[in-house]
């Protein structure tokens, strides 16, 4: 991300996976109650995006717990451990696999509420999301809309290595269930400056990834980068996009969005999921409910079509919202 300029300090540039890796390492070192549980996270593999690399060597089989292919048992065990004094991090490879542990999400995570406030569940769930590697319908979803319908769960969706590290540390320290979603396409060459000093980023605080005046674009995860690149393109025509990355879907920093819409009068939400039942709908409905008067034109959702994710690259690309789709939506309301 950052480009080195003459006179700049030398900074540490870390990838998305390494930034997370540092967060795990720091939090495990800091608090002996933190442990990771999941499939194939141990000695021989660093996880689907390499984010666990080296942790097994450092923390051993006692704190990097490899399970059988038993996601229900794993998620249930994480909840049971969280309710009794530990701080588990449960690694689901892909968000698509949550279907096999969905009772735990829908009906067990709500322990605190059902018990009248008696329990805390300091639990972090990790899952990969997104298209981009032709992984097809069962390994490419993002499920934002599906997840926000689950109560008692906070949802983190970082878009940069810097955010990922700071948010992951907060998620692990949080006394509530949090799901932390990592987009496949962020695992690659993207880097951020990561300070040497420890830092955390609070859940529920949006980040303005780019300031602008004409249209507010709300984007998360990989779509933040598409929004930024669309913004660069439109800038050449004198159209100025403000790109807001809420970073957490729950809690949602509504105020940041309202403030931006007050300024721009226009809102587009780009979200990598099918339109119907998307998180984008929630943002739209919220703004209409609470900031209707700021709106000069209809809110647009730039989402995927209402289909499962297709395999073949051309169709997967077609399915996934991109710069062109966003630019088209912006033009329609400007």
């Amino acid at each position, binding site marked *: 991300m950052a480009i080195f300029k003459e006179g700049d300090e030398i900074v540490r540039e870390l990838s998305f996976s390494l930034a997370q890796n540092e967060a795990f390492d720091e939090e495990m070192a800091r608090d002996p109650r933190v442990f990771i549980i999941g499939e194939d996270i141990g000695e021989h593999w660093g996880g689907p995006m390499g984010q666990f690399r080296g942790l097994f060597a450092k923390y051993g089989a006692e704190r990097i717990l490899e399970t059988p292919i038993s996601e229900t048992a794993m998620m249930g*065990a994480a909840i*049971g451990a969280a309710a009794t004094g530990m701080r588990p991090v449960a690694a689901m490879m892909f968000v698509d696999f949550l279907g096999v542990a969905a009772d735990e999400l829908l009906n067990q995570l709500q322990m605190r509420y059902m018990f009248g406030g008696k329990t805390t569940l300091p639990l972090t769930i990790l899952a990969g999301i997104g298209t981009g590697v032709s992984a097809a319908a069962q390994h490419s979803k993002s499920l934002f809309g599906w997840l926000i319908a689950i109560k008692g769960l906070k949802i983190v969706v970082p878009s940069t290595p810097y955010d990922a590290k700071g948010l992951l540390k907060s998620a692990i320290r949080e006394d509530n269930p949090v799901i932390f979603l990592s987009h496949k396409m962020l695992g690659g060459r993207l880097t951020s400056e990561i300070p040497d000093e420890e830092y955390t980023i609070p859940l529920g605080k949006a980040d303005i990834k780019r300031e602008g005046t004409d249209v507010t674009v709300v984007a998360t995860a990989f779509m933040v980068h598409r929004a930024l690149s669309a913004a660069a393109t439109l800038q050449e025509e004198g159209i100025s996009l403000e790109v807001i990355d809420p970073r957490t879907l729950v809690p949602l920093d509504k105020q940041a969005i309202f403030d931006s819409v007050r300024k721009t009068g226009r809102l587009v939400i780009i979200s990598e999921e099918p339109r119907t039942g998307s998180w984008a709908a929630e943002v739209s409905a919220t703004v209409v409910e609470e900031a209707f008067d700021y709106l000069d034109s209809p809110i647009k959702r730039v989402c995927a079509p209402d289909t499962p994710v297709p395999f073949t690259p051309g169709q997967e690309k077609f399915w996934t919202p991109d710069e062109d789709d966003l630019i088209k939506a912006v033009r329609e309301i400007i």
Partner: protein
Amino acid sequence: MNIEKDRLIDMYRTMVRIRQFEERVSKEFASGNIPGFVHLYIGEEASGTGACAALRPDDYITSTHRGHGHVIAKGGRMDRMMAELFGKKTGYCKGKGGSMHIADTDLGILGANGIVGAGIPLAGGAALSARMRGTDQVVICFLGDGASNRGTFHEGINLAAVWQLPVVYVLENNLYAEKTRISDTYKLTNLSDRAGAFGIPEVTVDGNDVIAVYEAVQVAVEKARAGEGPSLIECKTYRIHGHFEGDPQTYKPAEEVEEWKKKDPIDNFRKRLADMGVLTDEDTGAIDREVAGEIDDAVRFAVESPFPAPEEALEDVFA
């Protein structure tokens, strides 16, 4: 058998508490004082009582939709449970949970559960946590025969077996899952045979004999505490009331009902205690009356307690 007298007396008192609590719940439910669904434990008192008698106060249990007996056996307060059933603010869950979600984490009671079989993976987590925290706490996971057909049974017990976690699975086989005869849902004689799929020890006991349950569970608990892993114990028992209150139970053959009435766990234990010279009929009568007083107190507590404010429904989602 080599059980201290006090423990025997405690077990008797616990069973009577459960029986009287449940009978009163049945009445209060019929009178409309208890909303929602209630699933009563009448007839199965020996199983929860014997099992929990083998635990220390700092040990854990996970329970089921039929959980009142487990809670009482683990030392839960009847007044707070009754208040919860009434939906009162003084209830275990401040009225948010009701019968299917009673919990008292201070007593290691990790909750009833409205989803059949959902407690099984949770129990493994508590056991893992106990080990990671360096304690020698043990977890009893109560589950029904019906629950043993759920995938959670397989995944949860296998994980505990692989990691040799300190869990004792107490499978309360009461012959039915709702209206379904449990023998229609598997092709085995003893459900404890399923332990073979995980390579863990199995025991089948008369679930209406509190001493037999206690002894079997105690062996398993000691094993678990010593780091020797989980066991599966099937308690053969019978549910006397309907699946839920109001169930006309047309599905139960009359002879079966008669047969099991003769096996009433409390009547039989009372006789046995008399035979053993532990408690005379007078003694047990006194206990029964004491408990009746406790139940009255519990109901009074429930009745006199306030309902929570409606807006308090907004609290307790997040810490």
